[in-house]
């Protein structure tokens, strides 16, 4: 008599464990989730619309605000799409720096995920440890761009500037300590029976369902699908790096956890390789239509001055047409669809935000779980509302 009666429970939008302003309407039978309906849009900022009114180079800072835990990945997606439309190729050094920084970004994003995920399940110390590491990466960000979070460091056709002196040593120092730290966190969690009890068999999703739902990134790989854009469609020279794609089997919270932990190791490995590859050279394409000439040149070359003026007055234009370019962001496949009408402003920009798609899988994952598990599952999806709502 009593058990057939269900109750509706509101979780969020102001709830500490929903990672932002997500609102879930849960239908419960006892404590078992029967239905879960996510409500989004509380953070809608109109980035896609905004980009239409910005010139190409100006649009980059807007993308920082999407996945604010991995701004450089967002920059990269846009920049690569534009470069694809323009058909330019970057110098070696620029590509290597991009790889290095996006992999650091991936580590940084995963660290925040690990910390909050662990905190949701009650392991509070891990949270603080993770933020300590994240601080180190933020310091590196600051060093290259002057900004800690919204760095907007990449440019169409290259980078905002070359690396500052001493940067490589700083990265090296970080990479030296990081594996041990990571092992420490794993020691706190991976084999911990409590942690396993809370995560194994929770929020399971099958391989076929995951594909049908368009899951990407660690969530998909935890189901055993070896899809990684870096490997499937290499960009920025990823084909030249050796790394593995960690896979899971069960597709539950624990596997997603393991996959991300392993990804951090792989990112560390790629970053190390990138550091070795770092040879001196230009960081921008030698195309004055895209990249403003160096300051001293302005005083000597008229041509340079014109280019400079043109660039800053109306920007550059992209040939009419459309491109789709996807990268492997920390959260999954981040695609950028760009339609150009030949003007200096994009006609239409659309981002395929991985969190948006991944969140769609949440109802399927939590149905049949307990309410307390919902938090664990959300944590394991690693969503960022800024990216979902754009």
């Amino acid at each position, binding site marked *: 008599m009593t058990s057939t009666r269900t109750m509706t429970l509101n979780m969020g939008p102001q709830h500490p464990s929903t990672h932002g302003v997500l609102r879930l309407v849960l239908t419960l039978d006892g404590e078992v989730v029967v239905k879960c309906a996510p409500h989004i849009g509380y953070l809608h900022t*109109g980035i896609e619309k905004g980009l239409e009114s910005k010139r190409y180079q100006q649009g980059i800072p807007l993308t920082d605000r999407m996945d604010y835990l991995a701004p450089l990945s967002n920059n990269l997606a846009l920049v690569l799409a534009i470069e694809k439309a323009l058909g330019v190729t970057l110098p070696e050094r620029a590509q290597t720096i991009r790889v290095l920084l996006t992999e650091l970004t991936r580590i940084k994003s995963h660290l925040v995920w690990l910390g909050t995920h662990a905190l949701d399940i009650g392991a509070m110390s891990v949270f603080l440890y993770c933020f300590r590491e994240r601080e180190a990466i933020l310091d590196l960000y600051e060093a290259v761009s002057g900004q800690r979070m919204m760095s907007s460091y990449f440019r169409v056709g290259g980078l905002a500037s070359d690396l500052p002196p001493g940067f490589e040593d700083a990265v090296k120092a970080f990479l030296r300590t990081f594996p041990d730290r990571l092992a420490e966190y794993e020691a706190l969690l991976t084999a911990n029976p409590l942690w396993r009890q809370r995560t194994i068999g929770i929020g399971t999703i099958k391989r076929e369902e995951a594909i049908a739902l368009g899951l990407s990134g660690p969530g998909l790989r935890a189901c055993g699908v070896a899809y990684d854009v870096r490997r499937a*469609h290499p960009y920025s020279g990823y084909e030249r790096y050796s790394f593995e794609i960690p896979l899971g089997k069960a597709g539950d919270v624990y596997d997603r956890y393991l996959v991300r932990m392993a990804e951090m190791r792989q990112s560390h490995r790629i970053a190390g390789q990138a550091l070795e590859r770092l040879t001196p050279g230009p960081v921008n394409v030698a195309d004055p239509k895209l990249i403003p000439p160096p300051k001293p040149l302005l005083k000597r070359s008229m041509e340079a001055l014109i280019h400079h003026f043109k660039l800053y007055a109306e920007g550059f234009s992209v040939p009419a047409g459309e491109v789709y370019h996807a990268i492997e962001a920390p959260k999954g496949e981040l695609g950028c669809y760009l339609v150009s009408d030949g003007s200096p402003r994009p006609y239409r920009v*659309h981002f*395929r935000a991985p969190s948006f798609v991944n969140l769609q899988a949440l109802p399927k994952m939590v149905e049949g779980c307990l309410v307390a598990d919902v938090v664990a599952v959300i944590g394991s999806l690693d969503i960022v509302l800024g990216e979902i709502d754009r």
Partner: protein
Amino acid sequence: MRVCRFLRDDPDLAFDFLSDVTGVDRLKLPQASPRFEVVYNLYSLQHRRRLRLKVRVDEGEAVPTVTGVWETANWHEREVYDLFGVPFEGHPDLRRILMPDDWEGHPLRKDYPVEASPRWWEEEPA
């Protein structure tokens, strides 16, 4: 729909992964009619191939939904509906997704009044 199903199930094509669905308002482009273009980005995990599928409709015309083929299309199509006002026929749950339920207009249309201040919406009903 049949095309979609074929694209997914044919072993030589096997576009089992729907990356993305989005829309373009072609109002200010050449060939502006039909006005809207719904773009499907397909991907084949097996063959590592991408495919872009486009459907063009005019104002008020509906696009058949592909949620039956790729479940993930659900939210994507809602987003297109929300931001462009393109309805999808047979969609299980066609509601606004990003904008509040009582929002007026579709922001990503090219004729959406960006400068005008929007009518502030009511407190969301409990």
